């Protein structure tokens, strides 16, 4: 987790620095510097998000080349390729993944879904 925290911390510090920098900026070059710092931060966040977003969230383990094994390796298809939420150290909320809380919705309603 800490490895993820440091770049995020630097990124947010750059945002705060560039915002406050505008208060003290006197020349166009200084304004450009502030804008550049904010852009660096934006690109870091963008790339931190893009990787998990484009990652496939599940696969058919049967399709893995088994190298002569009789049965598929002990792998869970949905979990195998499921990176967590980028930048936020929280787990994906599986209960709300279908736009309703599957743990609390009545069984009849779940069936209807």
């Amino acid at each position, binding site marked *: 987790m800490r490895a993820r925290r440091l770049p995020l911390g630097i990124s*947010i510090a750059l945002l705060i620095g560039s915002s406050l920098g505008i208060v003290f*900026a006197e020349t*166009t070059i200084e304004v450009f510097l502030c804008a550049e710092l904010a852009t660096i931060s934006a690109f870091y*966040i963008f790339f931190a*998000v893009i990787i998990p977003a484009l990652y496939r969230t599940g696969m058919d383990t049967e399709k893995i080349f088994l190298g002569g094994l009789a049965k598929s390796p002990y792998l869970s298809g949905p979990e195998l390729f499921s990176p967590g939420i980028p930048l936020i150290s929280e787990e994906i909320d599986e209960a709300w993944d279908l736009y309703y809380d599957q743990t609390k919705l009545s069984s009849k309603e779940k069936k209807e879904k």
Partner: protein
Amino acid sequence: MTTLAPLPFIIMIFSAVASTIVGLRSIALRNKLIATSFAVAFLVNTYFLVLSLERKFIYDSLGEFTFNAASIYVSELVLLLAFLGAIYSFKYMEERSETWLYYLLYQLFIAMMIGMVSSFNILVIYLFLESSSVTSAILVMFSRRRSSILAAYRYLALSIFGGIIIIGGIFWQYQLIHSLNLAEIGALGVGQVNLLATIYFLGFGVKAGLLPFGLLWLPQAHSEAPIPIHTLLSAALVQVAAFDIARILGSMGIVNSYIANMLLAVGLASMLAGSIYALVEAWFGSRYTRLHVGKKHIRGIKRVWAFSTISEVGYIAVFLGLAGTLANSGFNSEEALVLGFGGALLHMYNHGFSKSQLLFDSGVAIKVSHSEDLDTMRGLAKRLPVMKISFAVGALSLGLIPGTLGVSTLRELVFNSNVPIITKSAVVATAAISLAACLSVWSNVFFSASEEEDNRPTIVPMALRLPGLLIGALIIIFGSYFTLEWSGIVSTGPALRNALRILAETTIKARVGG
């Protein structure tokens, strides 16, 4: 700096850092610090808004910032909604573990929005636009669904696309006039102004959610965000971006017919398309509207509000375009500015209030029904008896019904003899479709048959109930005032018109008459 006008911006930055440090020790103390910071920032801003509308405060500069009547007016809406959203979040997000990051980004996001409206330097506006994208994109993912990651990615990708267009415009502007100040664009030739206007309109239009690019990210990002963030994105951020469009294109001259036609065409298209999408989503769901990032199709309540946001920003663009159209057709250009830009600024409050009211109440309905899908959100009238009324207030205001805040838009666009008939027809059609969508959601959530056996009133925590009720009350109070003033029962003299004149002029200039 000669006054305390920039204080709300500074408070938000320092409170973001201070509350994070305090939160390491005590969550309760952190929440108190956040609420106090928002309250102080809001009160200071209100004080300067009153002064500026009475012409006792002209403007204040701090570095590249310029705080004037129009910027303070838009900041007021942002701060009010952010204050209520923070109170709402204390309860709505209390079960989450990473709240320190949530509140840090939340307050920075508000500071960035204030920054976006408080400068005439295009590079500074761009900087805060970029920063607001970063903070809000991370906040979108706090829903913790897989689909919210995809929504945040699309949002960031489109924001960076818009940013690249803007930065291209900024470099070209600097090459032409060696200045980043919007006031100096007037020195350019008509062709150059038109091209620069198109570039900035495209770039900021992405963020404002206008067609065509708004459809690619807005419904997904807004509907995937947690309710308080969805509220800020829909009711504040898109309007802040629309205000920047008004400031930038207005600085290029409101009598420019090319800019006026561009605003009018895109505004009308966004207005109609957004409302039609909202109605189709309310009736048939994402199977027909598409533009969905979830694993399965739903009839998403938040998606209805997201599509409706595109429509409401369209109104603002139409207002801005009308200013130019009227000025070009022999109408007094000062009056055209008041009608167009003043009307747009009034509509920002109508949309901001009604959308936030609907979203705050929708959040409670989602909590109670454990669903965001209209197919399973049913029959809550007995469980949420007060909310079934307050929800209707927001819906009626969005449908421009007299007695609500929507009456100001109705009056300026439909009952104004200077507005072309085609625009009037489009506005009437949009209002009717929006109203149908809102009432469809209302009847579905509260009055359709429910399988639920327990129909006793649900006790909703005050932190979740208060924001919606307060905004609902403001819609009724201001709406009644505007309705009575329109019907001639109450007379305000020239006060309202003068206030609109100050706001409209300070949107495009640092000071009135300057």
